[in-house]
């Protein structure tokens, strides 16, 4: 932000002498101030914390502690239930934070006139969107790291294909964020945003393999899963956990969702 450089009649001589006053250490940058405040507000919403953080962490600990789920299972293509559910839970966290909580919060901000009020200040409302995106993706990534660490402690091998793993996770984050922004663009109110979030939440988790893990899916379901965002995500992350670089097709599917949803959302988005 270089909002202090324009000539306001009242500008004091000292500030016009130092055109970079907005980056002085005494004044926190508005964007980071927004991030701080919004992060605090996230921490003050107990439901969001329970569903995004506590629940998946509890699930992975249970899966890791019960001995039976750590052993390879023939019905799961030779993988242990812990290993099968690790990427699914990681998808769940990003889906919930970026495609459910984020659209609900942003729609409520638009509904309450918060974005509109912001647009009367020198800080454009797009900064608030940026801060929110950063927080919800940040929360998602941080919890996914916790899930991975817990799983490694319980015997899942360290992902040997780290670049492939990071790339897959980034693409999943981008795809879920695109879906979240698409919901935000189309939902006029917070209630509609929450409802749309639920509508995509369960099918997407289903095709990620939450209830029927991908190795046990019938052929048709698995094909659909390949082309669903989280199915592709589980495929890509699963391959990188095995030590292979993910195949091109799941990465392209994720990229298509991210770019396609993001572009439609950007076109349709309304600030008020």
């Amino acid at each position, binding site marked *: 932000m270089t909002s202090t450089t324009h000539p306001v009649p009242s500008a004091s001589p000292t500030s016009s002498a130092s055109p970079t006053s907005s980056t002085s250490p005494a004044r926190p940058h508005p964007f980071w*101030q927004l991030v701080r405040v919004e992060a605090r507000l996230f921490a003050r919403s107990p439901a969001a914390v329970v569903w995004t953080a506590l629940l998946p962490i509890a699930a992975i600990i249970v899966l890791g502690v019960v001995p039976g789920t750590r052993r390879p299972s023939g019905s799961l293509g030779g993988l242990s239930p812990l290993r099968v559910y690790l990427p699914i839970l990681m998808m769940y966290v990003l889906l919930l934070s970026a495609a459910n909580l984020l659209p609900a919060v942003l729609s409520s901000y638009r509904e309450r006139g*918060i974005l*509109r009020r912001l647009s009367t200040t020198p800080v454009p409302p797009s900064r608030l969107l940026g801060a929110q995106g950063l927080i919800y993706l940040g929360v998602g990534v941080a919890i996914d790291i916790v899930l991975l660490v817990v799983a490694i402690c319980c015997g899942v091998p360290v992902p040997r294909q780290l670049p492939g793993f990071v790339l897959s996770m980034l693409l999943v984050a981008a795809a879920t964020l695109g879906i979240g922004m698409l919901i935000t663009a189309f939902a006029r109110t917070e209630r509609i945003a929450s409802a749309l979030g639920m509508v995509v939440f369960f099918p997407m988790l289903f095709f990620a393999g939450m209830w029927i893990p991908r190795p046990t899916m019938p052929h048709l379901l698995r094909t659909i899963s390949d082309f669903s965002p989280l199915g592709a995500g589980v495929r890509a992350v699963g391959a990188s956990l095995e030590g292979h670089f993910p195949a091109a097709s799941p990465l392209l599917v994720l990229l298509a969702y991210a770019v396609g949803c993001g572009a439609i959302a950007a076109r349709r988005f309304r600030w008020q």
Partner: protein
Amino acid sequence: MTVVEVARLHKAYGARVAVRDISFSVAEGEIFGLLGPNGAGKTTTVECVAGLRRPDGGAVRVLGHDPARDRAAVTASLGVQLQDSDLQPNLRVREALALFASFYPRPADPDELLDVLGLGAQAGVRFGKLSGGQRQRLSIALALIGQPKVAILDELTTGLDPAGRRDTWELISAVRDRGVTVLLVTHFMAEAERLCDRVAVIDAGRVVACDSPSALTTRLDAQQRIRFVPSAPLDDAQLAALPGVESVSRHGDELLVVGDADALSVLTTYLARAGVLAHRLRVEQPSLDDAYLALTSTHAS
């Protein structure tokens, strides 16, 4: 110095014309009122001044800048309090002010502003727990935190009880005393009469009058109704013959004299000469209410 200049503003939403042709200018240090019935185009006008909407026609200047194009220059020196705008329910009062303070190059001291607005005790309270009046005061505080040269206050006493309204009026006077030019939107006559230096009366998207509240009321063919009980008998015919007096009538002991703006001084001089006292003297003058109704009803058709 002209701070806000609106010239031939026109704005339509589809087929519905919200603002037909509005012009006015606000001088530095004024409290300028936009007065008019609901749907007259007041809010659309201030939204164009705030740069939230682009006019379809005409020009708006705030401190010489176009608010729709020159966002950075206008947002830094214009504080806006909008109708229906909430904050995050879990945001505390002081956090909100500190956040908004970080947006401006030379913000006011948040704690001092809270004290001025009587919110010192609520600094740690979440927005969702504030009363209607407290939310309004916080909203004003957020409009002032950037030390603006101009503040837009839109219908800020709507929904407040009489005491809250009176407190808010004192606050607006205090805001002006800080050197802030105020553009006040209201549909309360009493508010405009009490606070505004000048008022633009808006009806059906046009300015139908623009003057000081007192000039608006005297501009009406001001009739005065003077009631009193004379201490000694008076000759009605002589009273009626006084210059400026239109009619004289009796209601029991009480005399009712109707006349123009000079009738009262003429009458008191006559009574003094006659050595008659006027007991229970009351003078009914047209208020801004009457002026407003006269102005907006003639244009209704």
